């Protein structure tokens, strides 16, 4: 490469890399030929192939944002216990695959000693799926890694054991775009004030028709302000979603007091038993209060505890609420039901109870 320094290097458009050169040999040898699995203990999966081959997977939590020292430490652990292979789950847990059962306990001991909690399997609370937040995003209302760190400190015991009614998936999103996705519990930013417009910058920074088109409720229109071409907002129409902010940063949606946190419940990706669902509003108006977000933790704790105590085995949060009814959900979690829980968006009529079925 250095010899051709004067000639620019064009990329090799190699696309999605072939994982087989990196895959653990037992997984490679038994690819597509697995027979059954069980979980010998929390944090450990045991898969048996049709040939009788076995593999033990030890799953551990990470901070997702890994410094090179942590990357190398995990690599060292992989060399010592897992034949030099590892993988990551959708929720940023690390998994070491072991062909030798005798290494399971020593690996668990090692990971625990190094501060990586072993768990996240079965009826546990796995790692919170999170976004980038103040660390790297250009539109965030709050941080992601910090919220998750505090929340997982609180929920650590539920990660390392399998004592929930079913798995619980928690997500966080730092704005209402909701990159964190759907969850049994979703902790999302909820803006409460219309954007504040810096009229000096709009004309130069924003493509105004694009911004007008981006508003879901047609609350933005072009306007001349102090002789400058800018935009104005019908604040009565504005739903404070923040959709105008990414294409037009001078429409600042974030503010110290206006950015709040809302908690949503009952989202589910899996098709097991009930069809996949979206999460529904449980509580809004919680303060965005770094570095510990105590009000958010308190509300999440109430929901986790009520679910843990009251749900039947295999019921996810949404299925549990479906059974007990929203009346009882708000009673058990000690949260308020308000007019803001009544949906007003397109299709909202389908979210209303049009039967005589009532929970008392």
């Amino acid at each position, binding site marked *: 490469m250095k010899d051709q320094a004067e000639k620019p290097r*064009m*990329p*090799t*458009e190699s696309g*999605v*890399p*072939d*994982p087989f*050169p*990196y*895959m653990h040999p037992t*997984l490679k040898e038994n690819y597509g030929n697995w027979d059954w*699995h*069980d979980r010998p203990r929390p944090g450990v999966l045991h898969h048996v192939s049709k040939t009788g081959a076995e593999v033990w997977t030890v799953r551990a939590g990470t*901070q997702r*944002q890994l*410094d*090179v020292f942590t990357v*190398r430490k995990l*690599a060292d652990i*992989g*060399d010592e216990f897992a034949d*030099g*292979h*590892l*993988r*990551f789950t*959708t929720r940023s847990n690390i998994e070491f695959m072991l062909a030798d059962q005798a290494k399971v306990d020593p690996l668990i001991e090692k990971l625990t000693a190094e501060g990586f*909690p072993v768990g996240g399997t079965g009826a546990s609370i796995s790692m919170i*799926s999170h976004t980038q937040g*103040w660390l*790297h*995003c*250009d539109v*965030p*209302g709050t941080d992601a*890694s*910090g919220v998750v*760190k*505090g929340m997982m*400190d609180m929920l650590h015991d539920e990660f390392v054991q399998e004592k929930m009614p079913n798995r619980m998936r928690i997500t966080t999103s730092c704005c209402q*775009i*909701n*990159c964190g*996705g*759907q969850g049994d519990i979703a902790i999302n930013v909820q803006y409460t004030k219309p954007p504040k417009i810096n009229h000096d910058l709009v004309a130069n920074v924003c493509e105004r028709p*694009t911004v007008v088109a981006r508003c*879901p409720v047609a609350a933005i229109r072009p306007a001349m302000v102090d002789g400058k071409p800018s935009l104005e907002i019908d604040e009565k129409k504005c739903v404070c979603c923040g959709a105008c902010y990414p294409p037009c940063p001078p429409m600042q949606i974030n503010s*110290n007091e206006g950015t709040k946190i809302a908690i949503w419940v009952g*989202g589910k*990706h*899996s*098709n*097991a*038993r009930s069809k*996949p669902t*979206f999460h529904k509003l449980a509580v809004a108006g919680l303060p*965005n209060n770094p*570095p510990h977000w105590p009000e958010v933790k308190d509300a999440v704790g109430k929901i986790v505890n009520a679910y843990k105590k009251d749900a039947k085995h*295999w019921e996810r949060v949404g299925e549990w609420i479906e059974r007990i009814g929203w009346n009882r959900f708000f009673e058990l979690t000690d949260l308020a039901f308000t007019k803001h829980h009544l949906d007003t968006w397109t299709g909202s009529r389908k979210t209303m109870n049009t039967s005589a079925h009532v929970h008392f």
Partner: protein
Amino acid sequence: MKDDSNKGQNPTPMLDELEGGKWPSFVTGLKRLRDEGAESNQRIMNDLLGQLNHSYEEKLGFWKGGTLSVLGYGGGIIPRFSEVADKFPESKEFHTLRIMPPAGNHYTTDLLRKFADIWERHGSGLIAFHGQSGDIMFQGCTSEAAQPAFDELNELGFDLGGAGPALRTAMNCVGSARCEQSCFNEIKTHRAIINRFIDEMHRPALPYKFKFKFSGCANDCVNAIHRSDFAVIGTWRDDMKVNQEEVKKHVAKVGRKYTIDTVISMCPTRALSLNDDDTLEVDNASCVRCMHCINVMTKALSPGDDRGASIMIGGKRSLKVGDMMGIMIKPFVKLDTDEDIEELEEFAETVIEFFADNALEHERVGETIDRIGMPAFLEEVGVEADPNMVNHPRTSSYVRTDDFEEEANKWFERKAAEAGMTADAE
């Protein structure tokens, strides 16, 4: 306290609060890069920590976007320029390279070390495994370092992922590599589809983003239905497999009542019944392949042999019409042979072309379908209406049906053809 005594070190009182507790701390990792990292990592991380702590105090973010790419590509890098660079100049450019991981996130320790070495030299030393779109996120390099960092990663066999209005990086579950519930070859299908359309990833020219995700069964471990425009979900169409001896063992172990409560009563279509001898009766025609009973009785129950996938189209997150899930478009496609996968690629191409030609700017394909209606979409992509596409048929009578008989005849002809094909095959 030690922080304050160190000359030039930004104080991080808010972040320091996130170093205790039982969960691994990202702050501890950032600080280690600041204190013990390569010289350039130390400089970047000191100011990055300073800016992050500033965000915690002001409750505001201080990054703005911009434009940055590597030679030959138009996307794949997330540029970040600091708005508080006067206070924190060393992290004024803190860009992220989105790099596609090996399908299914399998790594060797050797590969991880190579990544760490590259990012220690060219970036900040901070890597996320993985972003919500599925990429490895190499976070925190200058505009100047993006090209040499990419060159080295590219030489290792790694390519930039998607960003902006383009085909995005995809994900597949662990699938066939370690899961007996897998119903198709997730890795092969994922790579075939994405690599065929790789040009759409590297040179953003679509109306908006377009995502694929591949889950081996209806447990949907990569959240494909909610989070992708084109979800491929494993399923099977023959009878599920039952090992009655293992069913009996399960019942003996956990009890009859518990089995009824957690398996039989939880079947969403009442397709299961526990016989008096503790064997299981399955009404396969009523089973919807939801996976619940198979999840509970992993040794006794498994998907059938005639495996393949369902295709669901139109999932997305909030912006701007609200969250949407994919709609069932193809209830079953085979994915066993190269020809099967080729057929799926061609269908995917049809859908992407439809999207490119018909979607409005910043509109996801699910929104386009809503705007023009399912019948028009199906006609455009050459798929016939199927009862599996709906929860129930329409309830509104406001529709013009003067060609109903013609359409009904098509249905009967199709059914007759399918029956004929089945008879021939047997």
